């Protein structure tokens, strides 16, 4: 899509997804540079000296310039990179699978505090296992019941760190 829009034809110089990334890189550099005055506080002076030695803007500026320079070089190089767009090779089904798992992950995190680690893990783990194609009761019981409880008790009781507790606690 991009190659048709930007490069066109069968000439050796073709825009690929790399070109887009390179342009994004330059844009990022410019954005970082423009944000610096608004997003970085200067340290107070103590006995008339900068108390940090260097300004906290020094490395952000280096990174911004780096993004712009590398982005420019990358842009030039990308015109000679003949790499196919990896995202177009994926079948629609793969995108469906990815979406399902990503939604499950986000739900998992959202439910973590309200339901507690063990319950939310049980839900998500057995759902993913089912979706993945497992129909083995023992297998699903293992990832959906035994593993969440085991991890929960191992972490909270034996390793004395905290995971979100059961809702009735």
């Amino acid at each position, binding site marked *: 899509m991009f190659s048709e829009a930007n490069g066109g034809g069968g000439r050796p110089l073709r825009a690929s997804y790399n070109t887009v990334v390179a342009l994004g890189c330059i844009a990022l550099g410019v954005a970082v540079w423009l944000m610096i005055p608004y997003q970085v*506080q200067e340290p107070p002076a103590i006995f008339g000296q900068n108390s940090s030695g260097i300004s906290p803007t020094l490395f952000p500026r280096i990174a911004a310039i780096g*993004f712009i320079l*590398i982005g420019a070089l990358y842009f030039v190089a990308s015109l000679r990179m003949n790499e196919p767009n990896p995202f177009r090779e994926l079948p629609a089904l793969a995108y469906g699978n*990815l979406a399902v798992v990503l939604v499950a992950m986000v739900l998992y995190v959202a439910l*973590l505090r309200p339901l507690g680690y063990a319950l939310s893990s049980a839900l998500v*783990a057995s759902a993913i296992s089912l979706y*993945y194609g497992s129909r083995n009761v023992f*297998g699903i019981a293992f990832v959906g019941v035994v593993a969440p409880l085991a*991890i929960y008790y191992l972490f909270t009781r034996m390793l004395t760190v905290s995971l979100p507790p059961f809702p009735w606690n």
Partner: protein
Amino acid sequence: MFETLAEAALMIMRFDVLAMIAAGMCLGIFVGALPGFTTVMAMAVVLPISFFLEPILGIPFLIGVYKGGIFGGSIPAILVNIPGTGAAVATTLDGPAMTRNGQSRKALEIALVASAIGDFLSSFGTILVIGLIAAIALMIGPPEIAAILILSLLIIVVSSSGSFLKGMVMLFIGMSIAMVGQDPIGAMVRFDFGFHALQAGVNLLPLIIGLFAIPEILFAIERRQGSIVTAERTRPEGERLRWGEFRRSLRTILRSTALGGVIGMIPGVGQVVSAFMGYSAAKNASKTPERFGKGELEGVAAPEAANNAVNGPTMVPLLTLGIPGDNITAILLGAFVAQGLRPGPQLFQDQGVLVYAILLSMLVACVLLVIIGYLLTPVFSRVVTINKAYLVPLMLLFAVAGTYVYRSNPMDLYFMIAFGVFGYAARKMGFDVTPLVMGFILLPPLEYAVGQSVLLSRGDLFGYLIGSRPITVAVVILTPVLIFWIASRQGRRTRAAKRAVRDQRAKEEEAAGRTD
């Protein structure tokens, strides 16, 4: 000194001492293998146990946990591409690739042997020349740290797999992520975008678990593959390490050990830096550098030996000055002090035998690590035989638990998912995310060291470096030479390799034409 050593050796050659080291080690391996659990956390949890043991039992017990924990951290890095710590990131360059090739057992065994040798030799060397190392360690200050960090960032980019430009892009992205929150020196608010929660910055664990573990899950789910191992094998965990393979890797292991021993004198980031330096050096010296990143045995041996070779020198400031250089030695300091042993110059005079006994227990621990690890690797390497329909949800459970426990913040988990999507896209597009992780880990100490150097110089940085920092000047002069040398050597290698492939193909075509 030899009398002291002999006396010390007698002191630890007791069954209960060995049993305590072994017990600590098993604990360390299992806890270290849990994503999100660092060796430091494992040691902090068991520290009170050591309070109630006599010194010669309590401290070797902690040392067992320490050594076991570091090896344990490499296990998920190799098997499921989840590095639990920065030090294990370099191991993911070749470890998971070996697993996919059906060589998980071999990969674990070479990691084990390389770690143990690296650790043993560096601890042994430390015992012999502890005074010298202590003297050199005092010469490493902020300017030296800054110079060495800049050098290692450049080496990481030059030797990362794939295109140099893509590596640089990732490095700058990593540095930018590290800038979010507060600046490391003055804690001034920086890029918080108005959210107070962002002032604590992005944490390492969500970053690496997100960049490594989540893409593994996403790649697996794309086509709902059944097993990790791509090659068809009767035994998916693969063969053991062969003697010949070990012999061939020995040069790499020794080179990495030497590098790690030197870099170990940099406090704090020694392990991370030396793992990458060891890897780059091995790739640079190899006759087949193009195989690195695709499951090369030496690509696992090199970082593992290097990051463990750091262990000897990091103990030196603790023992000679009573100064802990990192969190692990801080906990050991707590254990020493709780036993009534105050590390420092006087400790060697007052308690020489006990100190040497503890140092020797580090050597014994390395030997025990090989034995225990050898017995446990078959168990761990079976992980790859678990059907992905169960392994994928299990990985997710561990990733979430491991990310959450660090600071109990659900925000970290959303970060983890976001980094996961980013890492997935980056890998699709041929970007290697390791320079990103390195930029992220190394920027704050670099920024700190540069700021300190400017303050130390009181306004005349150049004069200060020339006048009183010979090591810095040497590193600064050496940096361009070294980078140019590595880059040109790699360029030549890659061209030669491409030519060889072309020649080979031509020959094959010729041969094919003849048989037709």
